[in-house]
């Protein structure tokens, strides 16, 4: 079953990257000092996966507290810390680095036919910086003063006044941002410099396009949160007055600077996910992607327009009416490129030969949940409805549909799509299909009632609530049990597959991008010879010859 890469036979006797390291060490050091982008990707997977479960369990405990009015399992201050930590962990430790750092690291070089990223040592450094940031978050929990309680948005003036360990926790966000910037620089340079011969920009797989656009946002937006966080820390330490209203500072300026990063960050989270969708749909519909250039360009359009909509988080903060309607208009415009993608994906499936394997089912899940999340985003982007819904559960439901239902779902899709390639093992397809269904049910039970509660006026971040919300809160809590249960279920069968699973073939799904031309798991150098690319990225006519050889 020898594959070919552009006519050159691949040695299947070659050792996989698990068996061959880039340094002279063996065992754990061969991992901790590796410069292999695949090993670094796996190391990110371990770390990010761990924090995802930590964040999920915190969310579970919060839902448990909210199962009935009044105190259940924790006091109000603990609850404040919990919703802050849930946000900080899920956003800075899971969803921002998630797809680019794990799957981008692993597959971006392979998909453009490279042996590694442009700066392999910098890549390892990014991982260490990520781990330092994560350690700082954890340490800040146990120092005197107690865990941060400001909410993940760190709004001034409370973040200056709070006596909890705000400085250390937000310094962790600064450090994590640095890791994000270095990864972004690495990916942009890799995409420009290391494409295989024949791999022109418009022959790149769409996951590469999406990761490339994401890397640009990481470079452009992250420094702004960096300086904002530094200013808050300086404000807390020295009281310079830049954000302190008592000394002439302007808290709304803080909000602007915070969202100048944190809105584009939303697209750092979602763009790579959209790239994964553009990979999975053609593979399982056995059709070339519809509107390749439109999808590629819409990624760049999202990256660009997404930079100009930040103030829609601040419609009730006190801005001029002119500023508000301009930002509202821009918010509607940024929905267009997302729409372009959705329509192109659906058009790709039309008359395709659809094979509903688990990754594809996750993508269907995504399209449904993300559409709800996206459309309710328009409700929030309109000025009049925003005034009513601002800071309610409606917002919470909206961004969980977009982030968890969108990026989170695609995280699982990517996991199921590339698991055989990354680990060389196949998981139980039947269990994986059940997991998608369970997740879908649990997710909607968990978050849909929040739309209704938000519409009824339930404010976000409240520890207690009025009796009329009790039924909906209960449904939501039950949903959280199903979702977290499903997460552990997925973890269980993936670990089982890792230990006892069947060996995966090099191309279990019938994909045609470059990673499916090489062994599962790949060799340390990815390609024995750098391939020469002659075909379009989703040209399925080559599938037959790939199988025959």
């Amino acid at each position, binding site marked *: 079953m020898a594959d070919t890469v552009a006519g050159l036979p691949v040695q299947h006797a070659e*050792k996989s990257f*698990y*068996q*061959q*390291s*880039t*340094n*002279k*060490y*063996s*065992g754990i050091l*061969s991992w901790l000092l590796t410069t292999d982008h695949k090993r670094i990707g796996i190391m990110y997977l371990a770390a990010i996966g761990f924090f995802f479960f930590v964040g999920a369990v915190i969310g579970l405990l919060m839902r448990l507290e909210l199962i009935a009015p009044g105190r259940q399992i924790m006091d109000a201050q603990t609850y404040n810390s919990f919703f802050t930590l849930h946000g900080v962990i899920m956003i800075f430790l899971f969803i921002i680095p998630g797809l680019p750092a794990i799957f981008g690291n692993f597959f971006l070089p392979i998909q453009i036919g490279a*042996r*590694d990223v*442009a*700066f*392999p040592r*910098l890549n390892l450094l990014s991982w260490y910086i990520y781990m330092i940031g994560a350690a700082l978050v954890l340490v800040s929990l146990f120092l005197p003063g107690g865990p941060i309680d400001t909410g993940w948005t760190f709004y001034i003036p409370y973040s200056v006044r709070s006596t909890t360990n705000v400085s250390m926790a937000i310094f962790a966000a600064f450090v994590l941002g640095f890791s994000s*910037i270095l990864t*972004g*620089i*690495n990916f*942009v*340079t890799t995409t*420009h*410099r*290391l494409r295989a011969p024949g791999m022109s920009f418009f022959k790149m797989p769409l996951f590469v396009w999406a990761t490339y656009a994401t890397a640009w946002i990481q*470079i*452009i937006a*992250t*420094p*702004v949160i*960096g*300086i*904002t966080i*530094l*200013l808050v820390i*300086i404000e807390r330490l*020295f*009281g*310079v*007055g*830049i954000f302190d209203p008592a*000394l*002439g*500072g*302007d808290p709304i*300026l803080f909000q602007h*600077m915070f969202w*100048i990063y944190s809105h584009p960050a939303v697209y750092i989270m979602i763009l790579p996910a959209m790239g994964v969708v553009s990979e999975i749909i053609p593979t399982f519909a056995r059709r070339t992607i519809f509107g390749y250039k439109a999808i590629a360009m819409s990624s760049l359009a999202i990256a660009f327009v997404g930079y100009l909509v930040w103030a829609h988080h601040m419609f009730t903060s006190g801005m001029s009416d002119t500023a508000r309607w301009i930002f509202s208009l821009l918010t509607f415009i940024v929905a267009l490129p997302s729409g372009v993608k959705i329509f192109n994906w659906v058009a790709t499936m039309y008359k395709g030969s659809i094979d509903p394997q688990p990754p594809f089912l996750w993508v269907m899940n995504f399209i449904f949940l993300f559409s709800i999340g996206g459309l309710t985003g328009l409700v929030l982007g309109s000025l009049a409805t925003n005034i009513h819904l601002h800071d309610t559960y409606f917002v919470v439901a909206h961004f969980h549909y977009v982030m968890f239902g969108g990026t989170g779902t695609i995280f699982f899709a990517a996991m199921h799509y590339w698991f055989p390639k990354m680990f060389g093992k196949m998981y139980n397809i039947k269990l994986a299909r059940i997991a998608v269904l369970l997740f879908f049910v649990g997710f909607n039970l968990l978050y849909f009632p929040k739309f209704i509660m938000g519409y009824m006026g339930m404010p976000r971040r409240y520890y207690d609530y009025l009796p009329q919300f009790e039924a909906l809160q209960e449904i939501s809590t039950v949903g959280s049990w199903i979702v977290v249960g499903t997460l552990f279920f997925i973890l269980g069968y993936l670990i089982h597959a890792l230990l006892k699973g069947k060996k995966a073939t090099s191309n279990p799904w019938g994909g045609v991008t470059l990673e499916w031309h090489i062994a599962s798991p790949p060799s*340390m*150098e990815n390609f024995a010879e750098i391939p020469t690319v002659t075909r379009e990225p989703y040209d399925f006519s080559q599938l037959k010859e790939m199988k025959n050889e």
Partner: protein
Amino acid sequence: MNSYTDAAVHHVHRDDAGAKMGMWLFLFTEVLLFGGMFLVYAVYRYQHPDQFRLAAMELNTGIGTLNTIILLTSSLTMALSIASLQKGNRFLSMTMLSVTLLFALMFMVNKYFEWSAKFSHGIYPGSPELVNKPNGEILFFGLYYVMTGLHALHVLVGMIILTFMFVFIKRNKVTSENYVKLDNSGLYWHLVDLIWIFLFPLFYLIQ
């Protein structure tokens, strides 16, 4: 896992153009980092134009001008260091690098005297003297300390990098054939200079 070693198989990859591209991207993030501060400065200057002018009169334009000249000259010596190495003159390159470091040190010493003079006048964040001043002046000095402080931090980091380069040239790790590290350090040094070029008029000259 039976990891096994074969470093020889791994191709040594060298891409100078790629390395420079990465450096430019990094400098871009630095510009944006300071850009955030310039934005804050612009907003507050717009809100308190008179108090900003008043506060700026307290800064020593002479010492600021001196530091500008020092930093600009150090950029020249940095460029000369790179050019000498490209032409194969290691000794001149190292000399020029040392002169650059010397200029950087002079800049920091001036900065030290400038700041301590301010401190002795009771002008520092949170000081009773400053807190009693109008908001615009508090903000001006807050920004002055934060922006020039962050810039000084960059000068310090630059000095560390240049010291490393000196050692690299000495040990023939950076040579006339392979000088992209020195080139990139030069880019960084010019950026430090460039940011000062903007800080100088904003704080010292607009009075």
